[in-house]
């Protein structure tokens, strides 16, 4: 099994961002040095970014290192935030809080479902009291649909 260095992947992502930004930037008016158009700055920057990222790609190929990623908390927490966005949009604040806390607790294998449930319930209640009652934010607590 070959291990692709994380450093190389990150550098490649950066290079791709640079190239994409450059290609899109070609669509903006470049202008002249005296009267710079909206495309001047983005084009110059994305060109620099691409070149620098290529340097980093070369340097990571020269000195391969193995880094490990903590996949479990990474996936758990990112999906918790994403779940918050979706549930907030569809069902309101309280379900969104339950979802984000529930999913975040999956970052540790042995968190336990009872502490997780109690934490989620406590925080949802506290959020209701703080945001809706105390600060008076007008966020929908429960709703259905869009």
């Amino acid at each position, binding site marked *: 099994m070959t291990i692709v260095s994380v450093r190389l992947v990150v550098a490649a992502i950066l290079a791709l961002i640079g190239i994409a930004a450059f290609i899109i930037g070609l669509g903006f008016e470049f202008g002249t040095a005296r009267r710079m158009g909206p495309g001047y700055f983005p084009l110059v920057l994305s060109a620099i970014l691409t070149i620098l990222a290529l340097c980093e790609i070369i340097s990571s190929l020269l000195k391969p290192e193995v880094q490990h990623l*903590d996949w479990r908390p990474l996936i758990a927490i990112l999906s918790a935030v994403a779940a918050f966005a979706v549930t907030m949009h569809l069902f309101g604040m309280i379900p969104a809080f339950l979802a984000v806390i529930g999913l975040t607790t999956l970052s540790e294998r042995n968190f336990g479902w009872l502490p997780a449930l109690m934490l*989620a319930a406590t925080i949802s209640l506290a959020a209701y009291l703080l945001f809706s009652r105390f600060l008076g934010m007008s966020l929908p607590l429960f709703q259905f649909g869009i």
Partner: protein
Amino acid sequence: MLENIILGFATAFTPENLFYCFIGVFLGTFIGVLPGLGSLAAISMLLPMSFYLEPTTALIMLAGIYYGGEYGGSIASILLNLPGTPSAAVTCLDGNPMAKQGRAGVALFITAIASFVGGSVGVVALMCFGPAIARIGLSFGAGDYFALMLLGLVAAVTVGGGSMLKSLIMVVLGLLLGTVGTDVTSGEFRYTFGFLELRDGVSLVAIAMGLFGVAEVISSVREASKRKIMEKVSMRSMLPTRDDMRKTFAPMARGSSIGGFLGALPGAGTVIASFLAYSTEVRLAKDKSRFGNGAMEGVAAPESANNAAAQTAFIPTLTIGIPGSATMSIMLGALMIHGITPGPLLVSDHPTIFWGLIASFWIGNFFLLVLNIPLIGLWVKVLQFPYKYIYPVVIALICIGVFSMRTSVFDVGLVVIFGGLGYLFQRVGYSAAPLILGFVLGPMLEENLRRAMLLARGDPYRLIADPLTGSILALSAFLLIWAAFSGVQNLLKARRITDMPAGEA
């Protein structure tokens, strides 16, 4: 001068401002105590809530979080050997050995006093030099602003430590992210991909929360579950001997001056200040072997330095409108969201904000002294509280904070992207601070460059020919070349070291 100070205290001493100043420093210490979460994340988390407050009150609270975090960061350093904030990393070196020798109380006491001294020196420097620098700033043209911002970015890349190539990449990526949205001059939409939400640019809070909040939590989950803390710190154990006090006086004075000076410079900030103060103490000491084994000076000097730097960092941010560090760029963003343009006119146009804020720093530092000496037991308790009940709450607060900022689900989605990217960046040694700085300075940099080039009729030599612009640009070029040169030298040296048998290189 005197009437301004009176005006400042009159503003800061209203019950509301006192209350939010206390809330700010309290939360700042709290966040600072928790390892893995910095004041930057805390400020961005509370930014949406500050919309409900008056601009001055909001700023007093947000600033309190920032310098309160500098106090709190050292508590975790001393008791756990884990820095709560990056600038408290040096405090681990001698603070933790002191705790192991059973002198944790004394170390905490010295830290609080040194922080207070440093903070006070910083506030005095801010009072004396702030208005003067604002007056100089009034005469700056577009070219000078461009050159100054460029210098700030170059300084962040070269002085910031770590790989220069990586920092450069981060700055450029930040600048590029800053171009997203409506172009001010032409009105054209750039990189909006048809999203309405992107027309005003990428949300600063979403980026900051992703890179500094979510990413830091992800990487702290594994380590945090292992931590244990034992000691109880009583008031009595905190009292230093007379000899201790005498020994720390000079280091505090030196640390405050170093920190106060460095804090005002772009790019340097609190981390560099505390490191430099520490190494100065080591260099001056007769018996160098004491350092690393619980030397009092090794706690006092860096702590006074980082707190002095935290205060003087406000000088360029408030008076010229150019933030020197990532946290300051968030503060700048907060000012602008509240409809206040930082810059030379801030001091004369909004004296209540400028002087009220400064006066609140004094009060805040005093609150912190109380929070950190009589109430130290509280923070020890916070450290003992299992981290597993804290980070889910932090994630939930990040989500609701970003969402309520513009009631935008889109922005929460951005947090997912930047959180993931931020974690990857962190794992492979990219620092996110230059990105934020580039992002905030980007639009201003572009606008000033375009204006300056228009005035110079498209001739870059004309821009350089201006004595002030030219010399600032030359300074940036010098810094860049010097850093690149010493970088190559280090690389060669590192190669030679790796050839030798493995040791503690």
